[in-house]
């Protein structure tokens, strides 16, 4: 996340004639680069004639790097130091991180385009899954920087697809873009009207895609063959997954597929395959319903559904989408290339000027932590971007010169269930009685979907800007870690992470509450104190265990029990200074 700095310094003010701006679809299973000119947009083929470059990177022992098909072949042979899908680390290597792996892929695409076009490529529009949060977007920008590319704009994959489709077919009206890739799923609803591409709502799942289908087939094969997965080496798993993917592709054309693995030959029928993947497809349908509800639309309002992403070739996906929307999906675009084409059109528009206008939204709500780990939303999901919202805070102690602000992104009620974006200290507040200082904190989400936070103390006469010091979230390795986490596939890893977060959160809650009870304990009667102490003991106890739901429930209960206490403390702090003015009246919010 970039704090107090929205744009990169040193950007060239005007595009050079001898350099080009390309569009890049940095996908989880494969990536594509495209270029647009007055004659139209087209994908760029590499020297082997491929437009689709597998998002696979191999790090050789001598330090050299291979990207694309050669690396994919190594992966299929089960070699080490091969990174596929950037989301999942297949091999073992200490210095390959998602940002670096992504940077290698971007570098390769840049060189491919330069070779094919005979000009230098310095700028790019890069697409990201619409449902990517702030951390993942920032990491994508970092990867581009490492690859020597200036990012003109990050745009959402479905929006890019809509741009390419809308311009190509002259589409007008409300369209749904159903984008099921290898690792992510997005649905965006857009209004297309005379060069305006307005996103009405977007929803998705960054952990749902065709890779899940491969995994499901692989697990089925093991079950049929009576092989225990724990006994397999990572290499053997790699080979199995590759076989499963081949079978998946065959099942889009044929009624059955045969897989031979470890002397076992099994045949998977399309019916059985569909049963295996049904839970994933139902999930996509539920997400579609949520997007429709958010946009206050029904399926009748949707004029057409454009299918994007390789996984929309699976017949059952097409069937279920048709059932939901009551119309046959539009499959007359190349689902692998349309996103890159849209990005290229946007790159051309941004550098050469264009009448097209992309109006996008923020996919996930932004909020602030309040006492008890509860989130107060500042910007709701599906709010059009750019957006700038200002929230006022005040001090609760005399001469308080700092306060902590914790920004999170997500839809859940509790901090522990959402992504923590930044925790920072507001310092340098002038010495004033409690409740007098007025600190306006502005949250600005730019057109890339990236958040910037700034703060200002605006008490009458004391205009002074306050330094926002991020306490974490900016170090590259932490960003990389966040990217890994945001893209992590294995369910048990997520469960584990959530458990740790829940524990930390529960313990933090207890520690904080203890501290304030020591200070303002007089606001509680004995019964209340006893109740809080009892619940704190419960939370401390359950947070030693491994049942996350249990921990969350008890922590939430503690938050609920301490709510009245928090309010009383707030009232006291402000009451002293403002003679009974309620805290809400201090906030300025543009409703």
């Amino acid at each position, binding site marked *: 996340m970039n704090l107090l700095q929205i744009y990169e310094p040193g950007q060239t003010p*005007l595009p050079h004639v001898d350099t080009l701006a390309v569009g890049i679809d940095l996908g989880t299973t494969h990536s594509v680069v495209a270029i647009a000119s007055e004659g139209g947009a087209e994908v760029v083929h590499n020297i082997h004639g491929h437009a689709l470059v597998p998002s696979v990177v191999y790090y050789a022992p001598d330090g050299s790097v291979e990207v694309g098909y050669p690396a994919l072949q190594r992966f299929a042979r089960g070699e080490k130091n091969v990174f596929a899908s950037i989301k999942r680390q297949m091999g073992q290597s200490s210095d390959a991180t998602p940002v670096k792996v992504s940077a290698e892929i971007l570098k390769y695409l840049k060189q491919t385009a330069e070779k094919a076009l005979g000009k230098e490529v310095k700028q790019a529009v890069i697409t990201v899954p619409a449902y990517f949060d702030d951390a993942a977007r920032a990491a994508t920008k970092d990867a581009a920087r490492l690859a020597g590319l200036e990012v003109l704009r990050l745009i959402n994959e479905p929006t890019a697809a809509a741009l390419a489709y809308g311009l190509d077919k002259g589409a007008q009206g409300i369209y749904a873009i159903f984008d099921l890739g290898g690792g992510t799923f997005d649905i965006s609803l857009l209004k297309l009207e005379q060069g305006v591409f307005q996103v009405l709502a977007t929803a998705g799942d960054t952990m749902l895609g065709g890779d899940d289908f491969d995994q499901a087939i692989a697990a089925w094969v093991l079950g049929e063959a009576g092989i225990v997965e724990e006994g397999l080496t990572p290499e053997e798993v790699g080979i199995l997954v590759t076989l499963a993917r081949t079978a998946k592709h065959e099942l889009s054309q044929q009624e059955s597929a045969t897989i031979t693995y470890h002397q076992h030959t099994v045949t998977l029928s399309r019916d059985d395959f569909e049963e295996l993947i049904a839970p994933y497809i139902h999930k996509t349908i539920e997400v579609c319903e949520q997007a429709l509800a958010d946009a206050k639309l029904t399926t009748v309002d949707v004029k057409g559904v454009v299918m994007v992403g390789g996984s929309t070739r699976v017949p059952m996906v097409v069937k279920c989408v048709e059932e939901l929307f009551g119309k046959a999906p539009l499959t007359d675009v190349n689902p692998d290339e349309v996103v890159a084409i849209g990005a290229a059109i946007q790159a051309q528009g941004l550098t050469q000027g264009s*009448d097209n206008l992309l109006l996008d939204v923020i996919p996930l709500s932004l909020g602030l932590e309040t006492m008890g780990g509860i989130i107060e939303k500042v910007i709701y999901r599906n709010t059009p971007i*750019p957006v*700038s919202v200002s929230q006022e805070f005040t001090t609760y102690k005399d001469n308080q010169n700092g306060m902590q602000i914790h920004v999170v992104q997500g839809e859940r009620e509790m901090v522990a269930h959402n992504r923590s974006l930044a925790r920072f200290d507001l310092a340098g507040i002038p010495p004033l009685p409690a409740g007098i200082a007025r600190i306006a904190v502005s949250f*600005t989400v730019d057109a890339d979907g990236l958040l910037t936070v700034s703060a200002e103390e605006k008490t009458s006469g004391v205009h002074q800007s306050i330094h926002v010091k991020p306490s974490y979230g900016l170090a590259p390795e932490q960003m990389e870690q966040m990217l890994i986490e945001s893209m992590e596939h294995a369910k048990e890893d997520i469960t584990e992470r959530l458990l740790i977060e829940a524990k930390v959160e529960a313990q933090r809650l207890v520690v904080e509450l203890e501290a304030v009870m020591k200070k303002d304990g007089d606001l509680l009667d004995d019964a209340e104190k006893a109740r809080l102490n009892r619940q704190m003991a419960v939370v401390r106890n359950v947070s030693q265990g491994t049942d996350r739901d249990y921990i969350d429930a008890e922590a939430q209960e503690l938050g609920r029990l301490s709510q009245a206490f928090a309010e009383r403390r707030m009232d006291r702090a402000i009451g002293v200074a403002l003679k009974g003015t309620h805290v809400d009246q201090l906030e300025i919010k543009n409703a």
Partner: protein
Amino acid sequence: MADFLEYFTLLDILPAFDLDLTALETHYFQQQRNNHPDRFVGKPNAERLAALQRSADINLAYETLKDPLKRAQYLLLLQGMYVGTEKDTVKPSQELLAEMMELRENIDELTEINALYAFVDEVDEMRRRLLNFIDVAYNKGQWDKMAQLVLKLGYVQKAMNDLTKQKAKMVKAGKSNK
């Protein structure tokens, strides 16, 4: 951000409660065409920052004015009256509270889907009439009256949301019975 953004000026339209939404959207698109950060790529930093803020303000203006409830609340805000926010300065009258309580009771008693559909139509009609009354009050500058009507619109819209949820629940239950 200014405390009172001039939403109507930002969208280049005359202040009114009764707005032509199609025209509003056309103006919105036009203002974004001129001010969106995409139009300022490659320009000096200061210009781009200014465009970002303007574009964000235009978005906020459109989000507020396109929704009748938010628009009415904003028009009252321009009169210094806070309605329907956490810092309400206008309180609902006793009659309004009683009426709305009755509305809620009626909703809670709905158990049958056809009755619910009929009730949805009724509430929808109530909402449409309210919008007309608000427009009249606005044009006559009857702010206190308008504030009560806007409070009522808030309740009615909330009731409508609850009805929609209840409808979805009933439809789902009906499906699983079959």
